[in-house]
């Protein structure tokens, strides 16, 4: 039986892992390669590295980082942040990433999802959605881009369904309202998206307690849970998370 995945997320800026609240107030959380290796040794199922600066200069740094991670970590990892062409995807996959995540570029050019899927297979195309709860329409969320700074007017569920058809193989769904708050995932959002698509959904944003992980899987229908603050600042180890979920009947790779 396929197990549910625990995915620590490493937001990288100037070659350091950082973490903020609601995408702001960044705190230093360590060296990306060391932290990645530690999580892998502790039993993480996957890792996500996000280049949160995504400038031309940081592009080179992130390729070097991917190479270093791939030399030291033998579990899959996704890399994202500012990726906007098939050539960039090719470079990152060749450097050792298993998957890439597309966000702003996919909104601006949805065909990038199809081009990437046809060349690399949809299993390595992750669509990252930064979702903000709509004030006007209850039970709806709006897609935001450019690190959550720009609302697009797109409905999150509609965008997820469209992206699946185009070639996205997985959705990394971040609730901007919950991100960094440690108050729990937005499971209404997770449920709305996981019910609407047939590709895996990674719940992201808001993990603070072990029960939050359980809720994301059971109430939110998530296939994987992503977290940052609670692992970086050592509230819980990966093993604790996995043992807890397994004890509550969730299939885990322990």
């Amino acid at each position, binding site marked *: *039986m*396929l*197990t*549910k*995945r625990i995915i620590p997320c490493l937001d990288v800026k100037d070659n350091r892992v950082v973490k903020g609240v609601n995408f702001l107030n960044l705190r230093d959380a360590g060296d990306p390669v060391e932290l990645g290796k530690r999580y*892998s040794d502790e039993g993480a*199922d*996957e890792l996500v590295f996000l280049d949160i600066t995504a400038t031309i200069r940081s592009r080179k740094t992130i390729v070097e980082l991917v*190479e270093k991670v*791939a*030399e030291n970590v*033998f*579990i*899959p990892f996704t890399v994202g942040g500012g990726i906007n062409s098939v050539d960039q995807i*090719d470079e990152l*996959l*060749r*450097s*050792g990433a*298993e*998957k890439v995540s597309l966000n702003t570029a996919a909104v601006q050019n949805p065909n990038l999802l199809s081009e990437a*899927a*046809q*060349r*690399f*297979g*949809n*299993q*390595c195309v992750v669509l990252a959605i930064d979702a903000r709860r709509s004030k006007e329409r209850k039970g709806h969320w709006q897609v935001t881009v450019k690190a959550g700074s720009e609302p697009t007017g797109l409905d999150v569920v509609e965008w997820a369904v469209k992206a699946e058809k185009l070639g996205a*193989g*997985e959705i990394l769904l971040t609730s901007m309202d919950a991100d960094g708050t440690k108050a729990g995932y937005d499971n209404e959002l997770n449920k709305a998206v996981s019910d609407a698509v*047939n*590709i*895996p959904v990674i719940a992201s944003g808001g993990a603070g307690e072990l029960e939050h992980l359980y809720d994301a899987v059971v109430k939110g229908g998530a*296939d*994987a849970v992503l977290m940052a603050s609670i692992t970086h600042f050592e509230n819980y180890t990966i093993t604790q998370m996995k043992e807890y979920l397994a004890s509550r009947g969730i299939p885990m*790779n322990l």
Partner: protein
Amino acid sequence: MLVVIDYNVGNVKSVCNAFRNIGCESKLSCRPEDIEKADGLVLPGVAAFGYAVSALGTLAELVKKLALAGKPLLGICVGYQMLFDQSSEYGPHKGLGLISGNVVPVPDTQVIPHMGWNLVKMPPDMNLFAGLPEEKHFYFAHSFYADVADAGAKIAYTDYGFQLPASVQKGTIYGTQFHPEKSGKAGLNVLKNFAQICEQSPERK
């Protein structure tokens, strides 16, 4: 020396990194003379099937000839799928035809892609899994799978709502649908076993 065939698809370097980690020498190459001299061949692959087949191009015939002559071959993910007759991924596209069977979509009653760690039951007579427990989790990431039709093939299965072939062996032709290079310690063990198979191969020069 093991040769990891470099044919312009993703993730080739990860396979070499994994071999290096377990102390096995491997060479990333697309040169026919390296491929002919190799103790064993690895055909990796993160790509769509059609792209992978056309990227392998004229090397396909050479790999096929050497594998049929008994040089150990390990196909991984799409590299494994290419061992079969054909695939319907954005296709049809023809494969190497080394093992009978077709590559078909995972039924959409399941979440697709089949992505993550799934438990593989390993038959004791598959030497790729020597020294491993009867079952172990490995990392999968694929939307198509090989529907194996070869009576001469040994198969290890995983459960994804149906019995999905996770690894196949026919003589010295091996394949894994999962990624051993991304499956932590158990995966590294599989690669180590393959390296040993190559070392002991009578084909070795």
